[in-house]
């Protein structure tokens, strides 16, 4: 009978899986038990109840979510998480953009340009990120004091307190309509032909709501030590963002260069033979082919950028690690804060990796559709 060998193989595989699972579970149980026993011995208790306690500390740099000390520790951690997400998201996009341009320029036919790019990449790539971060953070302290702030544009102030911009408050209705526009743009393909019409109608609605409820502009002004009103981009955020972007752009540029070089020469020669210009060849042939080799490595770069953003503690940017450290120190719940830190970084990294892998699959599918 032909089914027999298959069945026995299935049974064997089931046994192997069962044993593997059993051993893993036993090891995990043992580790957990060991930890709780030694915690008991040292008189430490575990639990996440402290998250609802009032924080009693202030956070100097917040975005989107307001925070005051009487709010809960949980909210403080959320504010820190948003700060990490903010610097990582902007950093990742900028690093890829800068890295892409630099990587392409490193293959330029202009020797001076190529040389400058190479020197820059080598210097940054072979310097520890922490050093770059401290250097940038110290350099930004050289900006003039708040009372002698530079004014690059009306209502803008550049000083050692950061870049202060006028804040624009848009009415609630406009915000919702704009969100709908973004949503429709994302779902346009599924909506078929009426997609564009819906977008046009929504855009008109946004315009009308802005006419009837014009956005209010609030300008900052100096009161005592600091600027009041407006939006502040803190020097710590700027230094962290710049350091992460420079460091990772240098790495990404190497990935881009390698990927472009991996495209077989024949493809380029064929494109040139068809009469495409050098730029057209790059845009229409080389880069689409190189993207396939690039995307998995870009995902890795973004994930390590997220993790490197935790160096924020060195310069005083309140990211999630900094807030969790403070929490651990004030409440003594160090193990729980470590658990939270692991969960936060694991989920951020996995989410980014999943998104870029999906994009990669789309690329490969596109590739399969080619004649």
């Amino acid at each position, binding site marked *: 009978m032909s089914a027999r060998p298959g069945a026995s193989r299935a049974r064997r595989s089931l046994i192997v899986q069962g044993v593997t699972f059993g051993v893993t579970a036993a090891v995990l149980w043992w580790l957990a038990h060991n930890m709780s026993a030694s915690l008991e011995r040292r008189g430490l*208790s*575990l639990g996440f109840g402290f998250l609802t306690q009032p924080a009693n500390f202030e956070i100097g740099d917040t975005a989107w979510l307001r925070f005051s000390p009487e709010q809960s520790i949980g909210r403080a951690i959320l504010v820190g998480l948003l700060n990490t997400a903010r610097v990582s998201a902007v950093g990742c996009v900028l690093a890829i953009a800068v890295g892409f341009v630099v990587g392409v320029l490193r293959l330029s036919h202009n020797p001076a340009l190529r040389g400058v790019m190479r020197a820059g990449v080598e210097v940054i790539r072979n310097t520890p990120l922490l050093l770059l971060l401290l250097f940038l953070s110290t350099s930004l302290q050289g900006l003039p004091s708040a009372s002698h702030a530079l004014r690059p544009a009306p209502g803008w102030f550049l000083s*050692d307190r950061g870049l202060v911009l006028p804040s624009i408050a848009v009415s609630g209705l406009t915000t919702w309509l704009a969100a709908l526009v973004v949503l429709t743009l994302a779902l346009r393909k599924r909506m078929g032909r009426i997609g564009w019409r819906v977008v046009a109608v929504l855009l008109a609605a946004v315009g009308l709501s802005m006419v009837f409820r014009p956005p209010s502009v609030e300008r900052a002004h100096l009161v005592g030590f600091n600027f009041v009103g407006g939006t502040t981009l803190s020097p710590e955020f700027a230094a962290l963002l710049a350091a992460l972007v420079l460091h990772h752009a240098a790495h990404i540029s190497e990935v881009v260069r390698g990927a472009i070089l991996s495209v077989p020469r024949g493809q380029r020669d064929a494109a040139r033979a068809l009469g495409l210009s050098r730029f057209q060849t790059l845009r229409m042939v080389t880069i689409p082919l190189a993207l396939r080799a690039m995307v998995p490595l870009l995902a890795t770069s973004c994930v390590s950028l997220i993790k490197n953003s935790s160096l924020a503690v060195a310069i005083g940017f309140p990211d999630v690690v900094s807030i969790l450290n403070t929490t651990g120190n004030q409440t003594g719940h160090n193990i729980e804060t470590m658990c939270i830190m692991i969960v936060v970084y694991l989920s951020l990294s996995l989410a980014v990796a999943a998104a870029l892998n999906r994009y990669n699959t789309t690329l490969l599918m596109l590739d399969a559709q080619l004649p």
Partner: protein
Amino acid sequence: MTASIRAALIGLCLGALTLLQACGAGSAPSGGADRGASAGATLRAVRARGAVRCGITQGTGFATPDDAGRWQGFDVDFCRALAVALFDDADKVQFTPYTQQQRFSGLQSGEVDLLANGTSVTSSRALHQPFQFGPIYLYDGQGFLVPKSSKVSKASMLDGATVCVQQGTTSELNLTDFARRNHVSFKPVVMEDLRAAVSALAGGRCDAITQDGAGLATTRTMLRDPSNYVILPDRISKEPIAAVVRSGDDQWLEIVNWVFHATVQAEEYGIGQQNAAQFLTSPDPAIRRFLGVEPGAVDGLGLDPKWVYNVIAKVGNYSDIFDRNLGARTPLRMERGLNRLWTDGGLLYSPPFR
């Protein structure tokens, strides 16, 4: 293939659940006697090792290595006093420098026998965490260091200012409490490393640094021109500095307590490092008992009967230690203030040796 992936996923989920259960177990503290270190264990371990392990935090005047690599400072001297009491040798100490943030894990894990690193006594540390505090060896309070050019003369004038704070201290909490009590607002910039905070103050990123008073005196010496900075007179908190030990080891705590008391009592008797030898022949029975010339008051726990004399001769009394590390002849130029003897209007008071 899909079946094996599913099995692996289920396995992972179960594993995660086990861990979560361990994390969220929320076991209540066992109020029993075996909480923390067991009685006598620390002393036994110290004797067997032949050295005291002392957790410190580096800072001018409190703990710094000299040009020969030997640790010097106020905190260091109390650790040395302990080593002299136990081994009659001021060098039988191993120092472990910690940041403010690592210190408690270091003590908890048994890496050091005590912390003498500027830790303030607070109720939550004593009640929630498995530590016990020794006697208060420095009465301090949190203050502000500002550039003279800012023309700020008291803390309430700092409304709206950006204030640098070192992470992992009570300073963050005190600053927030002070701001709420006085209806002022501060923008904190929380630094992990003090040097980063100092460079931020020098660069103008921060309008002030807030720290314990003693810490500010040290910090001021780290600035390029210390005379351009002033410490504001306000004290926004009480910071009683004490040595910290693991809870549950009473013998060890007693030794830490009485070695410190001895340095205070010696100052009260006028016995210092310079003249200690003369007092060995003193006719005063209290002094004879104190120095261990007559038995009964200071022997026990297997200590050398003359340990008090050894401590004073080798390390000094409280004023010797203070003057050498923090006093007017040092860069810190700290006043004794509250840290004078009770007979001089201060708070230092040793229980009697008898």
